[in-house]
């Protein structure tokens, strides 16, 4: 006698869980669009606060540094390489240029499953008009 049937049942359960990434996507339709759309304002400005590569990977770090500077040391002006000056503000500067939060920030964030808690307090200027 041996426990072959029980082992095989266990294996089936294991592989059903293990292959989850493969079968899950058969039933779920992918979000049709996850690429952020640049608003007309951003298109006109042509460049972001810093290089595109930096923004894609590290914009949250930049926001944290801005927050720290504004809230802790009262500095409100950000200057970087390109010589332009920016008012360090989430709702005014970032969303002033990336005017549609839903089509820019949220597209990426939904895709990557990040839910910034910032919007508990900060506003999306568009939403409240």
């Amino acid at each position, binding site marked *: *006698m*041996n*426990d*072959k049937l029980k*082992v*095989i049942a*266990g*294996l089936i359960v*294991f*592989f059903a869980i*293990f292959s*989850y*990434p*493969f079968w*899950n*996507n058969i039933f*779920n339709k*992918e*979000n049709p669009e*996850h690429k952020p759309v640049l608003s007309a304002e951003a298109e006109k400005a042509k460049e972001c606060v810093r290089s595109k590569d930096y923004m*894609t*990977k*590290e914009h*949250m*770090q930049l*926001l*944290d*540094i801005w927050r*720290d500077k504004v809230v802790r040391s009262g500095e409100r002006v950000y200057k970087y390489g390109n010589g332009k000056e920016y008012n360090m503000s989430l709702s005014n500067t970032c969303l002033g240029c990336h005017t549609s939060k839903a089509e820019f920030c949220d597209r*990426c964030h*939904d*895709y*990557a*499953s*990040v*839910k*910034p808690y910032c919007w508990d307090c900060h506003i999306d200027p568009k939403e409240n008009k």
Partner: protein
Amino acid sequence: MNGNYIFSLITVVVLGLLAFFGTTVFGLQYLFGVIVPYACVIWFVFGILKRMLGWANSPVPFRITTTCGQQKSLPWIKQNRIDNPSTGIETIIRMILEIVLFRSLFRNTKSDITASGKVTYIWEKWLWVGALAFHYSFLVVIVRHMRFFTDPVPYLISMLEYFDSLFKIEFVGEVVGTSLQIGLPGFFISGLVLLAAILFLFSRRVLISQVRYISLPADFFPLFLLMGIAGTGIFMRYFSKVDIISIKELTMGLATFCIPDGAVLAGLSSVFYIHLFLVCILLAYFPFSKLMHMGGVFLSPTRNLPNNSRARRHINPWNYPVKVHTYDEYEDEFREKMIEAGLPVEKES
């Protein structure tokens, strides 16, 4: 210095360098991002099947009653139903508790010699604590990683991310001349616990001389491998930063069998490729190493058999009809010779 862990450390470093130079110098992103992951997953599946079916074909032994409590006996003697189960359901409870709480490890003791020269046994719970921390944070990290393989990301996974980053660890400032910022993206506590637990389990093997003596490269290699995986993961999330959106395009491509074009693959950071390659090595190494205790724990004969040897007769499964030669037959065969030699016989003729 101990050859066992130096050898394992060098192996993991070389594997990391392989992925690093393979993607930065030789442009083998397709190999490290697509071919190796698929090959290792297939290898893992067949490896697990081979090992488990091998075990499934082995006969189940007699009840091995290494118990930790009173067996079912006379009605007025209280049975310890979980530690010494006599029915299937009680055994299942014992197995579940073993698998989710590691009760056998909880009983771990350490022998020592007291000041007066006597041997004593001390309850040693740190291995149990370290093992629990390690396995559960590992599980949470793996489940959280499913955000790279699902779109839309299921609610349960977002929920887990939320609770995992609920405890905010934030820092903005300077450390030895370089500015450091931690806090955005949110800090996942499980990643840190995972790395800390691996380092603890490793230091245990190195610092306790008896444990070091019984540790082999096969014990150190998985530890270094996991250190490398957790280390590169933490490094890329909080320090070097990676382009998550492009990574998810690759991982979703792997899951749905439509690989994104070469530009996406070429744009990914080499830290990501090291992380992924070490995970692939882990998958490939898994079925043929001690890591198979993941499946093996379900087959622990001292845990998964009810202690009912007194209530039920268990026939040895590998019994075969044995040829016997009884004394009666022996005497029948040699009676005359025995009588001639004067030996006593039971029947005279």
